[in-house]
């Protein structure tokens, strides 16, 4: 799986929704859009910044919500590199409807009760549901039975809220690269598991990072939770994607 993205310095030109932008070869469409203040939604790809402590951008390519049309073909913006003269469609009715469907599928697949969730107000899934004006999902709920794991002294892992994006799997590793989180099984039985030994000894910083990068409220730091009160959080006043710069880098793009 391609995990990190390296860029070079050669500059090329492409258009996104008719707007001509400059990008560096090796960058993904998502990265180029982000640098140029164009919003493409993401749930799995994450831009490295000071707050999340990532060393480089990650793009698991799992959520597919960043699907755009590149020269007419649908592609994931987070894993597709830019190329000279690409014509990218992003904010179109068709693509936004695809994205809405993906959000709906995630809502019915898991058990998401926003009113009782610690992440409410800074949850990317909730914010995207508002953005795409999801009222009631058009699909039937799975009412899946999912385990909550509270055995780790520092982390609470609530699988009901997990959207299997794999940010934690890719980003939270030991210094020698061993994974603390893993992906288990496949198909409709897929899930995220924790390495109990390694998670037991997780550092304060990594525990904080795990909670922070989780796009939903699946990973919560025990006895800490979130500092910002409800009502004053990231998306409470500014809907996701409303800023001129991409929310994944919170305007801190270096």
């Amino acid at each position, binding site marked *: *799986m391609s995990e990190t993205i390296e860029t070079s310095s050669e500059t090329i030109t492409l258009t996104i929704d008719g707007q001509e932008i400059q990008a560096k070869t090796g960058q993904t469409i998502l990265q180029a859009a982000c640098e140029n203040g164009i919003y493409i939604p993401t749930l799995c790809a994450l831009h490295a910044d000071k707050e999340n402590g990532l060393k480089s951008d990650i793009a698991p390519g799992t959520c597919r919500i960043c699907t755009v049309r590149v020269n007419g073909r*649908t592609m*994931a913006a987070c894993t597709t590199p830019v190329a000279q003269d690409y014509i990218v469609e992003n904010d179109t009715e068709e693509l936004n409807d*695809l994205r809405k469907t*993906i959000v709906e599928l995630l809502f019915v697949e898991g058990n998401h009760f926003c009113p009782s969730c610690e992440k409410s107000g800074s949850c990317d899934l909730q914010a995207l549901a508002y953005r795409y004006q999801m009222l009631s999902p058009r*699909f039937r709920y799975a009412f899946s039975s999912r385990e909550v794991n509270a055995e780790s002294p520092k982390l609470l892992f609530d699988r009901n809220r997990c959207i299997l994006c794999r940010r934690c799997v890719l980003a939270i590793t030991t210094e020698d690269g*061993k994974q603390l989180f893993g992906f288990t*099984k496949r*198909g409709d039985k897929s899930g995220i598991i924790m390495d109990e030994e390694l998670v037991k000894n997780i550092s304060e910083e990594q525990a904080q990072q795990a909670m922070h990068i989780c796009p939903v409220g699946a990973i919560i730091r025990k006895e800490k939770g979130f500092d910002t009160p409800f009502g004053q959080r990231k998306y409470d006043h500014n809907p996701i994607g409303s800023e001129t710069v991409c929310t994944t880098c919170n305007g801190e793009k270096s």
Partner: protein
Amino acid sequence: MSEHIAAISDIAAKYDNDPNRLLDILIDVQAQERCVTDDVTRQLAQQVGLSWADIHQTVSFYHFLSETPRGEYTIYLNNGPVAIMQGYEEVAAAFSEAAGCSIDSVTEDGRIGLFVTADIGMGDQEIAALINRVVFTCLTPEKARALVKDMQEGLSVQDMARKHREYGDGNNSLPAIHSMVRNNIQKAGPVCLGPYEVGVALRKCATQSPEDILSQIKASKLRGRGGAGFPTAMKWEFCAKAQGPERCVVANADEGEPGTFKDRVLLTERAELLFEGMAICAYAVGATTGSLYLRGEYTYLREYLEQVLEQMRADNLLGKDIAGKAGFDFDIRVQLGAGSYVCGEESALLESAEGKRGEPRNRPPFPAQSGYRAMPTVIDNVETLASAAQIIDKGADWFSNMGTEESTGTKVLSISGDCDRPGIYEVEFGITIGELLDMAGARDPQAVQVGGPSGHCLNADARDTMISFEGCSSAGAIIIIGKQHDLLAIIDNFMEFFTDESCGSCGPCRSGTWMLRNTLRRIRQGQGTREDLTSMRQLSEVMKKTTKCGLGHTAPHPILNTMDNFPHLYEALIPEQSDIRVFDLEASIKAANAAVGRTSASKETREKEEEQL
């Protein structure tokens, strides 16, 4: 206990404690211990330098690996589409009753484990099962009961097989295979199953330049036989031009598409031709490393394939300075799979061969740029590589004179289901479905499934449809479905297959497959609405546009095809004025009823139930 630890340690050491060989290690542990327990996972984690989580995710991905014991005798009964048409239920019931355990469980004494598995590549000799990796075909309820008795008496699986049915034809009877599997070659064509002398193609290859080889493959217009039909020469050129100190050639022998079994026969009867094709490809692209990714279901062929490789090394057709050409070095190893359909997707296959979960990679980079262990890699279907060898021997013109303009050469088809002569047919591209049906002796079928579940479900109007890349393209599976079968039950089987085989990594595939399956089931139970039909179409569109790999793109095909080609089946199941959702009160409160110890919701049903008691 310490002996036990040492045994595991020896297995890992056999593969140099190399995390890239994790799949081989796990397969061997499973074979020896009948499971890969948590403790073993922890031990292996230490030994190969990964975390428990990292190894667990691989173990939990593959169908033939398990964390709990699967019995001294592990039965994997095939529940593919042809099996369910030909009496799977009865055979499964017989196994279950005789063994005294239900499906997906192990007898109390730990002796017999009974599990199901998707198609094992025996569609022409169903009902089939694997017992400790040995193939049993043509099972009936009586035979199932006899096999259980043998297991209870402690017979070896080899002895059970010999008692059960005599060895199959051709190489199946060789000591290295000794299998009851039959080839069922109904029509041998000129390319893959035609006349062939070992070594001729490879020796001709060694006298020419790599560029000459490439130009002959290009002139033959050979296209990939796995279904997608990518021009083979173009793929080889990409790899030849890619930067890298070493290159690799992989033969994809993971034919997991239900209804496909042509590679089984090619591997049994034309292994040398395949390996020559791989060596020719290696010569053309400058590769030194080769790997045959053999699906776990075909483990029974491994020993034979190793023998063929050994003989070819002895004959200077593999190894160093092949065919006397200085510097032409190339060798092949057999990599076993462990039960996963998506591993047939080339990048998933590479992940699997590297000891990881078999999940499709994000592309780019493409395998030709960075494939197996980051080497520029060519991955071709078994049939493609075998065809390439014949092209080098007999010429590009000879090959391109067969078939159609866009689809040159022949196609090896696996025909199964309701027909008189199921088996292997090597035919020129351009043959029509009607001609095939006549050849196989299929009269008046209800439907023809071309290319397996991911392909096309055709109705009686399709007799003139051509098998070709420009017409109806497929990896070679043709399943004939007679009028006596409930077609939507077979479509249900396909959707269950995709739901289970989706790697789970990308969201729209993971949730789209079960959503389609559940909606279809609701419709089949008479609780569907017109809205459900619309929503299945919408969801299918989303899956086609957003999923990462071919599995997600094609998983909606069974539903879409039948909605288009067999609309009456859906019409018959959906009540006329069902704009509102049909609600089954009894089914919906079953769990609640069970919890409070009440049998049923309505007085009426309760009374009916009491009467029945």
